[in-house]
């Protein structure tokens, strides 16, 4: 079995991305999980990428190692994916959110620095996942259907950031509020069990890519993996 080297912000996230890779490529992987500390900034991500890719390159010979890095978009307004916040709404973001840079572009630049400018020449198949705004967006789209741009932007309804963004009206339930209620409605006490259920019973990658541009970008990365390891 091929090795899938995952660099994520949460242990449960790695389960989701591993499942996505399995569903899109049709292959099973042996996971090697590495974590980034949440909120550690792009400098730490670059450092993590350098160390992680060093490890991957050492294991690459004969192991068929693939590399997947994932980071939430968290309202970075200039995200490449079309489901990012539209320009007219960006001014309502907090200063911290407004000044976030495009994470996909930052990670791609870091990857090019480490692996070379020509992606076709990279020694390891790579995928970058930047869910807009966070992994819960994709989970909700898989579970409930709908379009990415219709989803809320914040984690919790009672957060100060959500309140300020929606002022003067009170914010509706946000991504993690909605995730919790959908999971409860579907009868799953365990978050990871629910994620596995969504991936293997409900995820339609092609359909989800149409409804979520950020998932579409991720799928493009997975689709670019060597054809021998991909099933359409």
């Amino acid at each position, binding site marked *: 079995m091929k090795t899938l080297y995952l660099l994520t912000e949460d242990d449960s996230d790695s389960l989701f991305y591993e499942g996505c890779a399995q569903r899109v490529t049709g292959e099973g992987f042996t996971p090697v999980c590495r974590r*980034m500390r949440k909120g550690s900034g792009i400098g730490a991500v670059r450092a993590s990428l350098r160390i992680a890719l060093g490890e991957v390159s050492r294991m690459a010979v004969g192991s068929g190692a693939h590399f997947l890095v994932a980071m939430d978009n968290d309202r970075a307004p200039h995200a490449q994916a079309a489901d990012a916040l539209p320009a007219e709404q960006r001014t309502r973001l907090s200063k911290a959110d407004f000044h976030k840079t495009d994470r996909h572009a930052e990670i791609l630049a870091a990857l090019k620095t480490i692996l070379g400018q020509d992606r076709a020449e990279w020694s390891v198949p790579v995928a970058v996942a930047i869910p807009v705004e966070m992994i819960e967006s994709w989970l909700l789209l898989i579970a409930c259907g709908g379009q990415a741009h219709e989803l809320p932007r914040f984690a919790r309804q009672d957060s100060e950031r959500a309140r300020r963004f929606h002022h003067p009206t009170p914010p509706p339930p946000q991504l993690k509020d909605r995730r919790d209620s959908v999971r409860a409605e579907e009868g799953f006490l365990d978050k990871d069990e629910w994620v596995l259920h969504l991936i293997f019973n409900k995820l339609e990658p092609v359909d989800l890519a149409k409804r979520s541009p950020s998932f579409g970008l991720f799928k493009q990365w997975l689709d670019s993996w060597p054809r021998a390891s991909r099933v359409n």
Partner: protein
Amino acid sequence: MFENEQFPTTCQPKDEIDAAAESPNPARRHQCCRPFSYLCLLSSASCSFPANSRMAQSQPMRTVEFCSLFFFDWSTRHICMIKQIHLENYRSFVDAHVDLAEFTLVLGANGAGKTNFLRAFVDCGAFLIPLLRPSLKAPAKGQPLPKHFNGADRDVTVTFFSGTKSLPCSEYPSQRQPGRGAVELFRLQPERISASETTVPHAFVASDGGGTTQSLESLKNGDQEAMFDAAHRALISYVPEIEKLSFANVQSGQKQMQVRERGIRGPVRADQLSDGTLLIIGLLAIIYQPIKPPVICLEDIDRGMHPRVFEQMVKLMQLIAREQDVQIIATTHNPYLVDCFQDEPEAVVIVEKKDGASTLDTLAQKLEGLDYDNIKAADMPLGNLWFSGFVGGVPEFLHAKRQ
């Protein structure tokens, strides 16, 4: 007892000691193992500090009586520090060895074997006495040490190395020696630290923190004010709200710690202090107590402490380990604490469990396989590196779910 050769009665020739002591080079002088401190152990004796010793220079009295204890000149211990340990078929270890520093930090996921690693020192502690003090006899052997679950048919051995010497242990000592041993494993309990206690002249801190009041009180009122003042200065520096630590008479012969806090009119009794403050007091009492074990093992050293406090505490402990010839082995789960060892990755031991067996590596060994030299420390401090899993010692969540 000793596998390779008998330990010499002194670790360093006298003329070498004298030459080192007179050397203009401070590092050379530091290597001098002229007697300067005494560890009280088991029977009764009295001791005098040599006139030119550091202890004698800092103490107004040169003769100290230790009732029901005998003294242990462990000035030689600096050279006889435990430099490596090898665990074979012991508890969760099948075959693991690692180098040790004066202050060793032990990392690992829950259940990886950190506590078993510390237990090796405690289980064999009594046998370490002749390793650290060659003129003393080893105690009689007792029951065999506990074996690995899968290794009932194999021998169990814990071997300590000090330079070219080795000390293999396969059994517990025949009976637990009374008083302060060569190794103590501290698991501090705040309520034991704050308890009121009967004062005694030659107190020491017990493994749960009991004896803290006795120990600090005996420093203050037992002609060792300099040591008490040093501990006191450290305390008010780490917990700036505290202005003064003192001892109140609560019953006949019993005292309890109390502190003066900024802005509070009356004294605050120790049992009203926060757990974090009590744990800081407990740790200070351990490292400043006059009767210190040569090897101090500390579980969860940073428990209840602000990251900026334990940064200072680590520096203090490293200094005490170096200056007072104490070996400290401490466990943590805190990445910020690991950051404090940026310049000493060889002093960090990582315990991992692989296929049911605990393994040991130093962080320095783990870093050798990484491209860490090209990383800015600010972007990826050591604690971050450990948390991320790049050097192991992290829990494997979701393993069962993946199956």
